[in-house]
Structures are given as C-alpha cells and as structure tokens.
C-alpha cells in the first residue's frame, strides 16, 4: 500500500482526468485501501455533484429572435434596401419602419424599428471607429478624410443618439412624477417606451464604458434601473406602487441629472459645430 495520503488537489486532478495513467492507477489503488482518502474523495465528489445541481436560468422566450433583430442591422452593414430609412435618418423621430424580407418561415411582417436596434448600429459604429482610432491613430492616405475624422463623426452620432435617449428617458420620468394618481394610473405605453429605452440604454452604456466616459455610463446605469422597474411593472399602478418608482426618480435626482447631462452635451455640440 502506498502510505502517502492524497491531497485534495491530487484527487481533483484525477477527478477531472488530468492525472497521468500512472498517477491515476496509483491514486485509485491508495484510495481503495485508505479510509481517510476515501472520505476526502467522497466529499470532493459530493461537493462537485452539488455544483452540478445548480440550475442555470434559461434564456428568455424568443431570445434567438430578439438576438437576431439586434444583430441584423449591424451584420448586414445597412446594405439592404429595407433598412434604407435607417441610413438616411439616424432620425430623431423614431418613426423608422422596417419591412423584413420574406426568408425561411417568415411571411411578410413589419414593426416599428426598435430603439435598441438603432442603438446597436450607432454604438457599434462609434466604438468600432474609436478602436480603429486607437490602433491606427495616423491619418489615412485618402484625400481629405482621416481616421480621426471618421472617429469624430461616429462619436458625434453616438452623442447625438445618447442625448436623444436621455431626453426620452427624462420625458418618461417627468410624466410619471407628474401623473395624477388620484385614480389608478395606466402605464401600458410607459412600459413599452421604458422597455425600448432599457435595451437601447444598455448598448449606449456599454459604448460609453468602452469609450471611457464614466459620467455618462453611471447616469445611464442609474436611469436603466428605474426604467427596468417601469418596464416590468403592472400596466395599471396604484398610487402606492407609483410612489416607489417616483421615490427612486427623485431620491437620485434623476430628472435634474438628466437635464444637466443633456445641457452639457448640447453645449459641447454647439462648440464643436463649424462656424461658417
């Protein structure tokens, strides 16, 4: 009998098949005859089997379809004619409509182009050009257009969309704070708007993070928390339910902070504008 006891590390490597055949044979021979190592081996296996018992939440229903809706505007590079309104727009009206072509099992369908899909496109463009600028921070050989120009344009597009996003969030909050709650308040349309803003806001937040803009990122994070509450709340809220959401808005000074942030963005935009 091998007198050397097994360490938990030896046993773990053996459990995962990382021991050599010789080490494995030696360890098994020892464990069979050593009560102490047997107990340790059993305990280790029991712990690892408990880890396996942890359920992992399934993706939300329709996750694949939503994922594709998020990706399509980006991966198709805006090349499809049915996305032309997005190209021409980066419209501030959010009235762009998408008509998907008929592929696979889909029949003709249409829906309002969601805010987050536009956000995905703009954010990807801005972050992509930001990264491009970091890697190749020298002027290109193309006459009149440098990498810095592309980056500046992309960042301005992103700022413009973020500004619009912040204004829309502010409107949702102002309406909620000022709603007459003497009777139950209907929030169906607010929920829809909030859900759209949540999805777009996440993408903007990540872009802000990638671009090192901590202030915008933090504000978007705080805004998102409240929007999530609204989006997941009931369609009709009592004054008690509403007061919780209102408290979150007012306690964090969200409306004021949103105003300050958008005013700052507008001022920067004015300064950046050519003076001709």
């Amino acid at each position, binding site marked *: 009998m091998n007198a050397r006891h097994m360490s938990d590390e030896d046993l*773990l490597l053996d459990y995962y098949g990382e021991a050599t055949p010789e080490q494995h044979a030696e360890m098994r021979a020892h464990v069979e005859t050593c009560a102490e190592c047997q107990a340790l081996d059993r305990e*280790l296996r029991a712990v690892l089997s408990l880890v396996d*018992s*942890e359920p992992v939440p399934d993706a939300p229903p329709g996750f694949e379809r939503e994922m594709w809706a998020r990706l399509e505007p980006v991966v198709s590079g805006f090349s499809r004619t049915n996305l032309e309104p997005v190209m021409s727009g980066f419209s501030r009206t959010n009235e762009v409509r998408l008509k998907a072509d008929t592929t696979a099992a889909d029949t003709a369908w249409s829906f309002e182009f969601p805010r987050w899909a536009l956000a995905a496109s703009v954010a990807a463009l801005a972050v992509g050009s930001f990264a491009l600028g970091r890697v190749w921070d020298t002027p290109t050989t193309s006459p009149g257009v440098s990498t810095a120009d592309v980056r500046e344009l992309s960042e301005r597009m992103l700022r413009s969309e973020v500004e619009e996003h912040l204004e829309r969030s502010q409107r949702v909050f102002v309406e909620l704070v000022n709603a007459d709650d003497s009777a139950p308040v209907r929030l169906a349309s607010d929920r829809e708007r909030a859900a759209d803003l949540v999805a777009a806001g996440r993408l903007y937040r990540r872009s802000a993070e990638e671009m090192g803009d901590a202030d915008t990122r933090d504000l978007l994070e705080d805004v998102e928390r409240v929007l999530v509450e609204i989006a997941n709340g009931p369609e009709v809220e009592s004054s008690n339910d509403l007061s919780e959401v209102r408290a979150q808005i007012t306690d964090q000074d969200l409306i004021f902070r949103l105003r300050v942030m958008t005013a700052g963005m507008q001022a920067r935009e004015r300064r950046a504008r050519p003076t001709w």
Partner: protein
Amino acid sequence: MPESDPAIVARAQDGDIDAFRALVEHHSRYLFGVVYRLVRNTEDTQDIVQNTWLKVHAQLGRFEARSEVRTWLTRIAVNCAIDYLRSSKRREAAVDPADLEDHATQATAYVPQPGAERLVLAGEIEARVGQTMSCLTAIERTAFMLRHVEGMSISEIGSELGLKTSATKHCIFRAVRKMRAALAPFVEV
C-alpha cells in the same frame, strides 16, 4: 436532413446573411447558458451573447472547417465574457469568502429529508451554490466553470485566460476549496 453547422458556416463565410441568422438562432440559447455561468447576470449575459455574435461575424473567415462549430462559438463567447469580467468594476465586488464560511457553519448538516422538507433543502443547496459561485473571483469562477462544466483541459483554460498551467490549477483549486467550505454542511460523507 438538416444542414450541418460547418456547411452553414461555409455559406455564412460566403456572405449569406440567412446562414448567419441560422447560426444565431441555433446557438444563442446554448451560448446564453455558457455565458451566464460565468457572469451570473441575465442582462449582462444577453449583451455578451450579442457581442459574441458580432465577433463571430467578424471572425467568420478564421473558422476552419475541421473544427467543431459549437466549440469555436464557445471559445469566442468565453473570451467575450472574460473581457467583460476584466473590464467590469463589479468583478472583484465579491463578498469575502470568510463571510460565506461563517454562514456555512450556521447551516444545518445534511440529513435525508422527506417530501417538502427535502425540496426546501434542495432550494437551499441551489441558493448556496449560486451564492458561492458569485463569491468566487472572476478568474476562479471562469477557470473552474470551464473545467467543470465546459470540460476544457487545464492547459486549454490557461491558454484562454493567459495563465500558466500552474496558475490555472491554483485558480481551480481555490474555487473548489471555497465550494467545499460553503457546501460542507450539505454533504453527507
């Protein structure tokens, strides 16, 4: 007969957008599970899966036909999750494992329970596993999950994480040690 994954990837490499869509629809749910185990947050998981697909799209040309599509996707998803964990300020906001060990000692020792009580206990165990996982550092959790759930070898994990084999082993050892401490009251030996 359904088209094989490598054939779909080949079409996507030729610019077929519907082929790429098929990949997204076939594998997104699986990738959600892979990423969730690492970041343990549904919303972040969704964003990371999205980033994964953007990277997959950008790297389609690098896929080699002899590889397994799902393994390739998993690697990209894991790398996206690792990038996220590295950049996230939350990554080291884990609770001190000592706290968890304190709680562990207060838990009742496992004894076989009938019916409803057993279900309650199962719920407690799941909660404790989840809590402990969240308390691991990002690198410990990632190394451990890649070994334990994804079945990657320690050397593969090391190369994904940019760690030496010995450092990778130690990450896994530390993770398992913490799991043992937290789950000891539930283990009947």
